């Protein structure tokens, strides 16, 4: 972890956000298995440091785009947890009024374009937002979260090439969790580090430990500032691991048991908690308190979501066109 000094408040806020994501995901998983939540889910347990590390480095009016696995990104960017839970339950009060669902969560007011569930499909949206910022000479940046698997889509190449050519204020963040669905990254990518793919566009490619939230934060801050200062895009690879299924009810039989076991030891919240305690930023008890408070907060959120108003069937007919 970093040598820099941060305020206790800052560090605990990071911890709090990661725990919120973890517990949100665990709660959602439970609600799914219980059978009370509709739809399908792709969860990010184990990847909390990427979402929080990156988004902590962003400003409120910076923009992110996300994927089929967007819950962590949304929470980290500040989308209201209530509006997310409502959306997952398909309620009218959801951030997309029940029209999006898990894979399309987002809230532009908080700087998140609704998530795109087509692998790689979100990439040019971020570059396009960045183009708008650049044309209007606004000091905003865009960040696109993608998985390792997404870097094999043609759109990855097209987007990075144009972003690099036009030196757009955008950061491409790869959450390399070693798998695309059940397929190991070694079956699909031959470079040692995926970030090497940046080289042919003559933009920086950086690979770091994606489970070290402060390292992620610091790297993100640096590349975000590069983008903001007109120095162009970066490809930032965060190596992490998904300690849950690819989607609901996936038993992950394709992940070797030992790999899983090690990944669990290396998961970011435990690591960061230990760092906080070891360096006397917080006691075990304080961390537990944070967790307990979130548990309670989520109790309320879930109850509110359950009793929130359903859309009317005919609401399906609205929101097609502005005019």
């Amino acid at each position, binding site marked *: 972890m970093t040598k820099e000094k941060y305020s206790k408040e800052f560090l605990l806020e990071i911890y709090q956000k990661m725990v919120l994501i973890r517990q949100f995901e665990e709660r959602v998983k439970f609600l799914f298995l219980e059978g009370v939540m*509709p*739809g*399908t889910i792709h969860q990010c347990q184990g990847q909390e440091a990427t979402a929080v590390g990156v988004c902590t480095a962003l400003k409120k009016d910076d923009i992110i785009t996300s994927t089929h696995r967007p819950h962590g990104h949304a929470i980290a960017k500040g989308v209201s947890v209530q509006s997310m839970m409502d*959306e997952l339950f*398909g*309620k009218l009060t*959801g951030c*997309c009024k*029940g*029209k*999006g*669902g*898990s*894979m*399309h969560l987002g809230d532009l007011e908080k700087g998140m374009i609704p998530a*795109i*569930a*087509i*692998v*790689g*499909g979100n990439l040019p949206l971020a570059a396009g937002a960045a183009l708008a910022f650049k044309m209007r000479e606004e000091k905003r940046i865009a960040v696109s979260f993608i998985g390792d*698997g*997404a870097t*094999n*889509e*043609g759109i990855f190449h097209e987007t990075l090439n144009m972003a690099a050519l036009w030196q757009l204020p955008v950061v491409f963040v790869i959450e390399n969790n070693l798998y*695309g*669905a*059940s*397929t190991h990254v070694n*079956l*699909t*990518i031959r470079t040692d580090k995926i970030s090497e793919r940046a080289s042919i566009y003559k933009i920086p490619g950086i690979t770091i430990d994606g489970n070290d939230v402060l390292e992620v934060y610091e790297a993100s801050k640096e590349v975000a500032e590069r983008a903001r200062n007109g120095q162009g895009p970066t490809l930032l690879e965060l190596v992490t691991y998904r300690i849950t299924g690819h989607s*609901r*009810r*996936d*038993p*992950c*039989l*394709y*992940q070797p048991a030992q790999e899983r076991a090690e990944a669990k030891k290396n998961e970011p919240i435990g690591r960061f908690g230990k760092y906080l305690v070891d360096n006397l930023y917080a006691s075990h008890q304080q961390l537990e308190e944070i967790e307990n408070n979130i548990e309670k907060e989520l109790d309320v959120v879930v109850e509110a979501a359950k009793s929130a108003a*359903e*859309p*009317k*069937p*005919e*609401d*399906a*007919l609205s929101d*097609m066109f502005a005019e």
Partner: protein
Amino acid sequence: MQKMGIAEALRMAIRQEMARDERVFCIGEDIAIPGGWGGAFTVTLGMEKEFSHRMINTPISEAGFFGIACGAALMGMKPIADVQYADFLFCAMDQICNNIAKLRYMSGGKLNVPIVMRAPVGVTGRGSQHAQNMETFFMPLQGVKIVCPATAYDAVGLLRTAVRGQDPVMIFEHKLLYGSKGARAESGAIDGSSEIPEEDFTIPFGQAVVRRCGDDITVVGTLLMMHKCLQAAEQLQKEGISVEVIDPRSLVPFDYVTLKKSIAKTSRLMIVEESPKRSGIGAEIAATIAEEAVDLLNAPIKRIAAPDTIVPFSPPMENFYVPQVQRICNEIRQIILK
């Protein structure tokens, strides 16, 4: 004879075709990873054990692997390429529409492109990008045959015909009909299983099947909608309304002979589909009948379809979006009782 769901039946049929013809191979994402699901819906589960060299797991590169399948087909191989959800066909659209569909014709008939494409369709609680009934986007495409198996028996027979033929075939399969089990089971699924005879049988394209005989109205539906039509027919039976249900099975080519014969008897036609009404499957069927057999009708042709909107996520809206049995019954009653 063995009773099988569609996913299981397709698995068996693909294995048999691979065993009998070594030109056949499968290509797609996550199709044959030990410990994986055998594609998104278990169709190719475990097949890597038997055919390790002919189960090609790809990166997430739909345009690329459809194009690669096309190139292999041009060299005489028989690829079976699949996408996890039909919506992703949009990523491979250029390869399918500009190359796979056209290469035979534009070579003056000198080439064949014997490729089988498989794609799961259907509105299933996953939001708008994993929901599209992509049949409507392929109906205008020339050069690709399109089949829609609603039962395991048809899935086997149509797949065999597709694999053994020399032309590109798109097989649309419905997520709620697969009968996928375990972790891949679908809520809201309908039973599409059949008894599958031991002996080798095939189903020629362009032969509709009358799923239920009736006198008062002809109702056409494929995949999930076919089953909903059958359920509606069952209900209406009790009210004395006799519904004939036709399953075209292949959309391209389309069996207008069977359809017209049925209309000649019932003099009424309704088409039910899961996709939006505008330029849906029903449009072409209705237009053809209006053009060629309007004299047989004594009521306007009715199309029951989703509304002209994107697919919403939330269950109340989604249920409203997809034509349901009650809606089909009501619409039939209105036509009959008018």
